[in-house]
């Protein structure tokens, strides 16, 4: 190999140090937020003068926070279901299909990943205002599904590419109809990809804030929007507590994904 890690010599130390620095830069703010959520200072002083759980008590005592969290979970779940369903069908077309414009379609479906979110947010805001979908759950779910689609298509299409079509053909010769063969053989065989797609598209919606700000109404707010709104009105450690919960669920989902992938692969 051109760059063999074992043969880097002193560069190895430099590389480790640099990697550690980048990791710290990315992780420290999250660690700070979590620490502050347990700190007793109302002014988010660091290091905290003492430790307490009262911000979490406040958080759970406030129905508007609970409602925001439930709204987020509801929208993310629907987004995941929709994105996986559409992503699955799209992946079959992109991987198996032989038609003109297939590569263009692939690019089109993946654009939400590279397009600046704010551009998409403004566009869909204006569009949904006309349709009367602004501030509705449907509007939220549709907008988030567009954003989540690339995260659903990439793992499913990758899994499908790695799946030998002869296996599906074998199921058909065995007497399964083409649909039966897909449902009973192909889908279970690419379940790691489908599962990853579900988690990723759930998360894409769960922690999405830009589009959500445009979509939200006073009565329909997701957790990130509620955090954002609270930050602007008053700086309270309850926000740190809410953020910590957001991070905790994301982390938990990522760990579950990693564990399941390992289990399914062996």
């Amino acid at each position, binding site marked *: 190999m051109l760059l063999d890690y074992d043969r880097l010599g002193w560069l190895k130390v430099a590389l480790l140090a640099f990697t550690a620095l980048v990791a710290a830069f990315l992780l420290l703010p999250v660690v700070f937020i979590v620490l502050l959520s347990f700190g007793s200072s109302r002014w988010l002083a660091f290091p905290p003068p003492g430790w307490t759980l009262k911000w979490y008590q406040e958080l759970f005592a406030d129905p508007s926070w609970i409602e925001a969290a439930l709204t987020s979970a509801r929208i993310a779940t629907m987004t995941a279901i929709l994105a996986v369903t559409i992503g699955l069908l799209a992946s079959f077309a992109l991987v198996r299909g032989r038609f003109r414009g297939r590569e263009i379609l692939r690019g089109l479906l993946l654009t939400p990943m590279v397009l600046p979110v704010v551009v998409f947010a403004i566009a869909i805001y204006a569009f949904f205002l006309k349709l009367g979908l602004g501030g509705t759950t449907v509007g939220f779910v549709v907008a988030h599904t567009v954003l989540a689609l690339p995260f659903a298509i990439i793992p499913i299409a990758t899994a499908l590419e790695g799946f030998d079509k*002869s296996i599906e*053909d074998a*199921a058909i*010769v*065995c*007497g*399964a109809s*083409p649909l039966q063969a897909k449902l009973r053989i192909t889908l279970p*065989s690419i379940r790691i990809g489908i599962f990853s797609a579900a988690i990723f598209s759930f998360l894409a919606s769960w922690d999405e804030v830009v589009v959500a700000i445009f979509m939200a109404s006073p009565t329909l707010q997701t957790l990130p929007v509620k955090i954002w709104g609270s930050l602007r009105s008053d700086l309270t450690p309850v926000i740190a507590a809410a953020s910590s919960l957001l991070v905790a669920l994301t982390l938990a989902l990522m760990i579950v994904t990693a564990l399941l992938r390992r289990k399914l692969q062996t």
Partner: protein
Amino acid sequence: MTQPFLSIRKLRKAFGAFTAVHDVTLDIPKGEFLTFLGPSGSGKSTTLYAIAGFQDPTSGDVRLQGKSLLSVPSHKRNIGMVFQRYTLFPHLSVAENVAFPLRVRRRPDTEVKRKVAEMLSLVRLESFAERLPAALSGGQQQRVALARALAYDPPILLMDEPLSALDKKLREEIQAEIRRIHRETGVTILYVTHDQEEALHLSDRIALFRDGRIEQIGTGEDLYLRPATDFVAGFIGNSNFLAAEHLETVGGASTIRLADGALVSGINANGSFAPGQKTRLMIRPEAFRLERSPNNAELAVEIVDVAFYGERRRIVARTSAGQEIDIRPTSSALAAQDVASSRRPVFFDPGAAFLFPA
């Protein structure tokens, strides 16, 4: 005339301007082991896939017991198939793989159980029933695929180069297994391979494909001992082709002149040749003798190399016209030093030599 079991009528498959299969017509009796042999791109797999229903033929018909299969979708043809690649369902155990075709046919549980046990014992993998395919070797996977393809007692079993991914020793082992299973079940097998040895070992008959057409169909012996064309002679077994001029043919026996001027008569004539026509004389390497015997023709050669190949020796010799030929006498025929002398005659029976157009 009795109706053939499986009948392929003028099957043609074109991909745009390229015609992969040209009007192939073939009758296959029940219980036969027929091999489609040929180089890659010769149309053998395309023909098989048309029978399986994965390729719609451009024209022609495939009939099973008189009924056309073409309007029947793949999953309703009730045909068994083993693929070139490993196609076990990765998330199902060996037993569930074999049970799959019975489950989609909604057979009762007791029957499924009994049939799975019967099939796994047929391929001798009873103790692997609960394993996942990933825990099996390539050879075991293909045996399970065979069990799965036979579980529903299909009238025809299609096999598309099922052993090509396996190493030589394993291949021979599973060939023996396939022969035994063919004998025990009596199923009609259509087998595709590009390996002529495999075709010779396994088949009742071989259809040799070339450029989308059947070049010759017959038993392995027919193709080896009585090749219809130089392509067949060159594809099945090893062969030497010597440039020769045709002089005359009387009663199916030709007289020719070799490049060194030697006259040979009593050659098997394949077709008709004009006097003076340029031809090629085909002689199998093992048809050459090192000792003179009555009625044998003689060829003066220079020995280039002698190698020991176990049961046979392989001698590379050069004719006086400068053409290299391959000679394979049995090893016991004589000791190595006897053949090492550089110039000597070799002998062949004209009746075991064939004349083809140049």
